[in-house]
């Protein structure tokens, strides 16, 4: 059976020449090249070796502050460097400019939708929140802008139908959308679904990122990443 491997390679080549064919067994080889996440371990675990270049990413986390934004800081930097915009749609808290600047994000490329100005007299008084349906509308329209960059929004949960709309908008606009959610939605049509959990591993603080779903991968995989590495 000396020539058996050559037959396998031949079959491999044959199958790979047909791009519409997807092979579950060979999930690490996907044609499209993703955008690096900035975390080597996570890149390794994702089928496109990075974030998908377009589509909606769902991020599930039970509580705020466990690194859900840190996870996307390298991506934001990357997109801004290539001249894209970062849109924050109805964020739950105020994005804090000094913190973002520390993370190396160019503030001039950040746009916040649905936040009322805090005035000089009362910096604390700021009524946020555009109606929920308007926020979704804004996100859909923003995703449809060709090559806009990154659109981020925050929801508790979303029905499948609305998720599908957003995913479709992201595909038409070739834009990346990130939805931060609290509740898991089954059978969602989004490109990727992640879950973030904090871990305490001895003295080290790690964040567990569970890839629940990613196009080109069919069983969940958990990655432990140190998101706050550079921080004191």
């Amino acid at each position, binding site marked *: 059976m000396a020539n058996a491997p050559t037959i396998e390679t031949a079959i491999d080549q044959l199958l790979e020449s047909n791009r519409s064919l997807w092979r579950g067994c060979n999930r690490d080889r996907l044609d499209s090249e993703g955008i690096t996440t900035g975390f080597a371990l996570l890149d390794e675990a994702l089928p496109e070796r990075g974030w998908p270049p377009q589509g909606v990413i769902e991020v599930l986390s*039970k509580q705020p502050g466990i690194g859900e934004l840190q996870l996307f800081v390298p991506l934001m930097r990357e997109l801004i460097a290539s001249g894209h915009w970062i849109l924050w749609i109805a964020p739950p808290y105020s994005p*804090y400019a*000094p913190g973002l600047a520390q993370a190396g994000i160019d503030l*001039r490329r*950040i*746009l916040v939708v649905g936040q009322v100005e805090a005035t000089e007299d009362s*910096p604390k008084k700021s009524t946020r929140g555009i109606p929920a349906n308007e926020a979704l509308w804004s996100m859909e329209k923003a995703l449809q802008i060709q090559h806009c960059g990154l659109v981020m929004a925050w929801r508790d949960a979303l029905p499948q139908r609305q998720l599908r709309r957003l995913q479709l908008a992201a595909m038409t606009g070739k834009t990346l959308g990130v939805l931060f959610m609290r509740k898991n939605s089954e059978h969602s049509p989004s490109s990727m679904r992640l879950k973030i959990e904090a871990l*305490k591993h001895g003295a080290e603080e790690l964040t567990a990122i569970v890839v629940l779903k990613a196009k080109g991968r069919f069983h969940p995989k958990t990655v432990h990443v140190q998101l706050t590495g550079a921080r004191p």
Partner: protein
Amino acid sequence: MIKSTGTTQLTLLPQAPQADRTIRPVRPAAPQQTSPQRRSSLWYCLTLPALDTLPPHQQEDCLDQLAQLSQAFSSAISLHPQALVFEIRSGLNYFGGAESLHAKYQQEVEQLLTRLASNYGVSAEQLAFNFAACPTIEGSLLLARGNGNTLVYRKENLHSALGQLPIESLQVKPEPQRRLINMGIRHLGDLWRLPPAGLRRRFGSDFLELINKALGKAPEPIKNYLPPPAFVHSYELPYEVENLSLLRPVVDEMIAQLCDFLRHRELCASSIKLTLIHEQREATPLEVGLRQASRSQQHLMLLIDTHIENLQIPAPVTALHLEVIQFDAFMSHSESLLVGVDKEANNTGDPAAASLEQFMERLQARLGGDPIKGLNSIEEHCPEYASETVRPGENATASATPKNPRPLWLLDEPLRLSLRRGSLYHRQAITLLSGPERIEARWWSGSEVCRDYYVARETGGSRLWIYREREGDRHWYLHGYFA
């Protein structure tokens, strides 16, 4: 009822030129005398002597309304302080003479002023008016301010008609006025006898110019009153329309007309209103405010589409009504909203920037106000003042960032943390990771900030930015998430 201050009949001054009067003309007026048949214009002047007792915006509005009314009588109207002058010679035949024109005009002015007086809440005396007509603008102003109710048909009679006016009606400054009185000049007629060169030396060329204009010896350029632009357009639909997408071609046509109108007048619209009219139901108004004034049909249509998209109508639409609420001057090179950052991108026609701007425009049309903001970092010790929202594209260049860690989220209102058996609680127990960073600021503002900031970790894994007040009850607060 507003009454004019004098008699309501125009007194016709003697028409025959008084050739025997010993007037020393300021300049030999030979050419004018050789062509007495030349039709000169006749200016009708309306003054409101007490108008300056009203606030400026009411004065402006009052004159504006009068000017609009006068448009029915003349095509050349010019506005002056507390007065309005228009040309009537060209319309004398149509109105059947100066008297009937005057009677008609006076009646309408009285009606308008009575209405305005009750609108403004002022007394009738404040809107009392005076009128006069003569062949020069300045002359008619002087006559109306003087005695009023005078009509002078011919230029030759101006000397005598104006000569009777007291010198005060020239309304010069107090100092020259005093000198005129000291020179023994009581009436304008006294001026006619003085040599023009001397008058110029004593009172300046402006003074002489005024007199020459009044006497018709100097040209009087006028600035014609132009009514403010208005665009109102209605369209009756041939049948009732329930499906709003069927309205699109009609609206498109109306917007096209609007854009033509704007192009012809070098204008832009910055706020338009489209009203959908229903039978037996209240009309549905759609107000479209623009971030940036525009006259592009495509652009306006897009904004209206945004509004129509999810509109609920109570009944089928029977008619449409389009109106411009706010006009703006047209700028051929309107600045991009995302100035600075985007300049090169716009020049190269970056589609993302262009459509992003369009997106912002639609967002504003839909949500109203200024829903989209940029972020700016300020060098400021007090944490809540170190970040501000600005108009997109107005961010300052990057300022120095603090050395100590700053969170990505900041709570608008610091959240008080509870202490249970000596340990801090938010939702779960909190352990301090690093700190303190002492921040003291704004001692001058009355709400002094004296805090020790710590980076902390909640049992669940959240990284928090918390602080303890150094004064008062020394409570702990949560101020941000590192996220």
